[in-house]
């Protein structure tokens, strides 16, 4: 197990929890430490409990654990909310001069550090810096060189000018000094630094970055948690490369704008969450039937209806797989980590244009709001390839006309992929429609043409299955009889759970599936396994259903749907338990 430390700051929304957490996470990252962050937040602007958690290690971390070593508690509720994760030796930093924390006493075995956060902040230049005082105190507890904070304070407040950075830096040192002078600590929480240079980003940002790298120039969307960050990231950035981000009046408009831009030849995307996908589904069939390439990102949250907008779930699998009336060929990609959010976004754009098909790119809240450190090489732009598929120009479209020189945008081809002419291309004028159509794109009810066009569109999927790599990411012991299968964001937690299991001499083979449709054929792997456990964040086991359907075998299901992502240690225990049970015993 990596020597890691779990840190958190919690309080009320509006207390600056997020920015304080981010400042510390960046300081750790700049000090060459790996970081993985997670957030607890409620659907409100001010008030209510909110927390920013950081797990940090010299080794790479990709998940959260049920453990808190240092907690900055701005409210009593923060301690209550995290009681299960606190342990003997946990440090709780709080302000005993705050009315609500006056009577607070650290539970038995825990170390309470009563630091007058607000008073020290006021002395340093303003009460608003109380969180920074707490950061300084935390630095002292973890022997973290406080100079590392200065750079991230500069990054955060540098533009505001004046003495803001300086005052904050002073506030941090006041917190450090206070702990040093008033407490005689002998703890084992040293945060050692390294020379490594990391970047720190979340899944939404990785998607936006991947989109721009892949040549996306048009984005239309409507704000919705937890997908809005994709739009916020792209705003102001895609314009630098000649593109545009438009906030539409609703999701119906957003996807239709994206569709219009895609038909005009732009690499185009929209991003939303489940409720937005509902609205966009109207247009989904049109995109597929008109064979327009489009990337639709779904950053899933708890449903149905408005559900729990700020909580984790992977409940939209069936919606993406089956949503829309009629039968619609599509691709559904599910990045399994923050880094994969970048790579799968690039892949989504290429698949969309190579096969002129809508592509669902499905992340989830756990990926969207968690930040992670990476060596920058992980996002090597030189390795990004852009494939626009069968685009024709003025000369080459001559191969795709009928005897009246009319261009055939829906030509019946062997691989199912037809030529594509961007508007403005001479001689290529044509129509396309959501109605069933002939090769020219004109409406038809001819029974033979109907069958031929349906087959043609489905043939694109067959071609893609043959030509593209749909394999899962494989981890662990390939010979183990214990097979764990998962999709989407659970990969990090499962990989780490495997390390816990190894300590108990339980070996596991793990297949992490980044594709729901088409998806890898796991029949052989499943046949070779004694036990198959499918892990997913939903109640009914939507992916487990597919696995059972594909492999004709019952599997064990590990489901979580309380709104919180899987944690590594929790998963290890659950996998162990599942292995001991017979398949019938699991729901």
């Amino acid at each position: 197990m990596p020597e890691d430390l779990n840190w958190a700051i919690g309080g009320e929304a509006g207390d600056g929890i997020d920015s304080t957490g981010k400042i510390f996470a960046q300081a750790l990252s700049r000090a060459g430490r790996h970081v993985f962050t997670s957030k607890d937040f409620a659907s409100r602007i001010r008030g209510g409990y909110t927390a920013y958690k950081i797990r940090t290690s010299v080794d790479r971390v990709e998940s959260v654990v049920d453990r808190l070593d240092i907690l900055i508690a701005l409210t009593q509720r923060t301690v209550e909310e995290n009681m299960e994760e606190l342990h003997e030796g946990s440090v709780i930093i709080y302000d005993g001069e705050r009315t609500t924390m006056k009577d607070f006493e650290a539970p038995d075995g825990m170390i309470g550090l009563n630091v007058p956060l607000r008073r020290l902040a006021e002395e340093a230049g303003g009460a608003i810096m109380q969180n920074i005082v707490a950061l300084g105190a935390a630095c002292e507890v973890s022997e973290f060189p406080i100079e590392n904070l200065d750079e991230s304070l500069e990054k955060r407040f540098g533009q505001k000018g004046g003495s803001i950075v300086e005052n904050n830096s002073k506030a941090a040192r006041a917190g450090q000094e206070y702990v040093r002078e008033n407490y005689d600590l002998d703890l084992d929480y040293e945060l050692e630094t390294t020379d490594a240079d990391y970047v720190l980003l979340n899944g939404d940002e990785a998607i936006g970055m991947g989109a721009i790298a892949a040549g996306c120039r048009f984005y239309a969307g409507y704000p919705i948690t937890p997908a809005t960050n994709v739009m916020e990231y792209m705003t102001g950035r895609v314009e630098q490369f000649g593109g545009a981000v438009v906030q539409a009046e609703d999701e119906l408009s957003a996807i239709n704008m994206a569709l219009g831009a895609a038909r005009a030849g732009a690499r185009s995307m929209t991003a939303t969450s489940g409720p937005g996908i509902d609205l966009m589904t109207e247009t989904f069939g049109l995109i597929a039937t008109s064979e327009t390439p489009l990337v639709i990102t779904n950053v899933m949250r708890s449903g149905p209806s408005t559900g729990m907008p700020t909580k984790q779930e992977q409940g939209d699998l069936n919606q993406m797989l089956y949503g829309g009336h009629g039968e619609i060929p599509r691709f559904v990609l599910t990045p399994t980590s923050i880094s994969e959010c970048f790579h799968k976004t690039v892949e989504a754009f290429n698949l969309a244009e190579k096969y002129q098909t809508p592509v669902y790119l499905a992340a989830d809240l756990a990926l969207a709001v968690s930040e992670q450190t990476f060596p920058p090489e992980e996002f090597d732009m030189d390795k990004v390839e852009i494939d626009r598929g069968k685009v024709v120009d003025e000369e080459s479209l001559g191969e795709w006309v009928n005897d009246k020189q009319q261009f055939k945008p829906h030509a019946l081809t062997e691989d199912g992929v037809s030529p594509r002419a961007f508007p403005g291309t001479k001689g290529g004028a044509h129509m396309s429609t959501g109605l069933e159509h002939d090769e020219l794109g004109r409406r038809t009810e001819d029974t033979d043409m109907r069958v031929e066009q349906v087959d043609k569109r489905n043939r694109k999927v067959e071609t893609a299955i043959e030509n593209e790599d749909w394999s899962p990411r494989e981890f662990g012991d390939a010979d183990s009889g214990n097979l764990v299968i998962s999709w989407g964001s659970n990969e990090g937690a499962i990989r780490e759970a495997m390390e816990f299991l190894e300590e108990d001499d339980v070996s596991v083979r793990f297949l992490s599936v980044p594709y729901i449709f088409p998806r890898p054929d796991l029949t052989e792997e499943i046949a070779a396994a004694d036990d198959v456990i499918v892990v997913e964040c939903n109640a009914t086991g939507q992916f487990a259903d597919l696995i059972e359907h594909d492999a004709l075998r019952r599997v064990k299901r590990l489901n979580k749907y309380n709104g919180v992502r899987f944690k590594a240690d929790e998963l290890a225990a659950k996998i162990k338990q599942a292995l001991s049970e017979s398949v019938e015993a699991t729901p």
Partner: protein
Amino acid sequence: MSSDVRFTDFKSDKQPTWCPGCGDFGTMNGMMKGLAETGNDPDNTFLVAGIGCSGKIGTYMHSYALHGVHGRALPVGIGAKLANPNLEVMVAGGDGDGFSIGAGHFVHAVRRNVNMTYVVMDNRIYGLTKGQASPTSREDFETSTTPDGPMQAPVNPHALALAAGGTFIAQSFSSDALRHVEIIKQAIEHPGFAFVNCYSPCVTFNDVDTYDYFRDSLVDLKEEDHDPTDKDAAKDVIFDSEKEYMGVIYKDENSVPFEERWGISEDMSQIEDKPPEGAMDLVREFY
């Protein structure tokens, strides 16, 4: 674009399936003439339509075209225009498509002011579903779904457009070919979102809002002393409950299209087959 384009170049070889005598023939002919006479050709024109009789227009015209879903044609047109501002974008819809299911998009398209032309083929009835009330139907207009009339005020599309900050608001009549073409041409040449409501009678299901009715009642603003740049005058025309008018009702001479205000000028279809220059800076931002 080329100068020797004839309006028939915009005609496809498909015979329209509109009812004989349908107003949509005239509306479409005017659109084709307007496009040709403003120097456009089928290869630089992108035509979007929604659902209904009006939605069929993409089949009968020859251009780049998309026949979309009900009520959503405007966003498609906006996306296409922003992705490639060199395209001439025209959107066609019916009164149901535009002012019922698409009313939200209409208001926002008006206020967004993207440089494009929106022609509504308004026949004050649902034709393709065989005769139900539309949002512009009269209050007492009896139909299969409103046997005593809708008993609600009809939508006033021009008022909606003016209230939303419209920069070009016009009314035409499909049967008055000369005026219709003239208005369409002005709409195409307007730098911003040009809205043309075109009375396009339904000879099968609407026996009230007929050719005769419009011919007798429409007052041509050209023959009145109307100044289309005067917003108050436009208001008077729009809210006149006694008369109906034809012509350019309002035109903001200072209109600056959305794409110009936003600095969108590139044809976004043209990208290199590798990430853009300086893409690695995107990664470095996360240090």
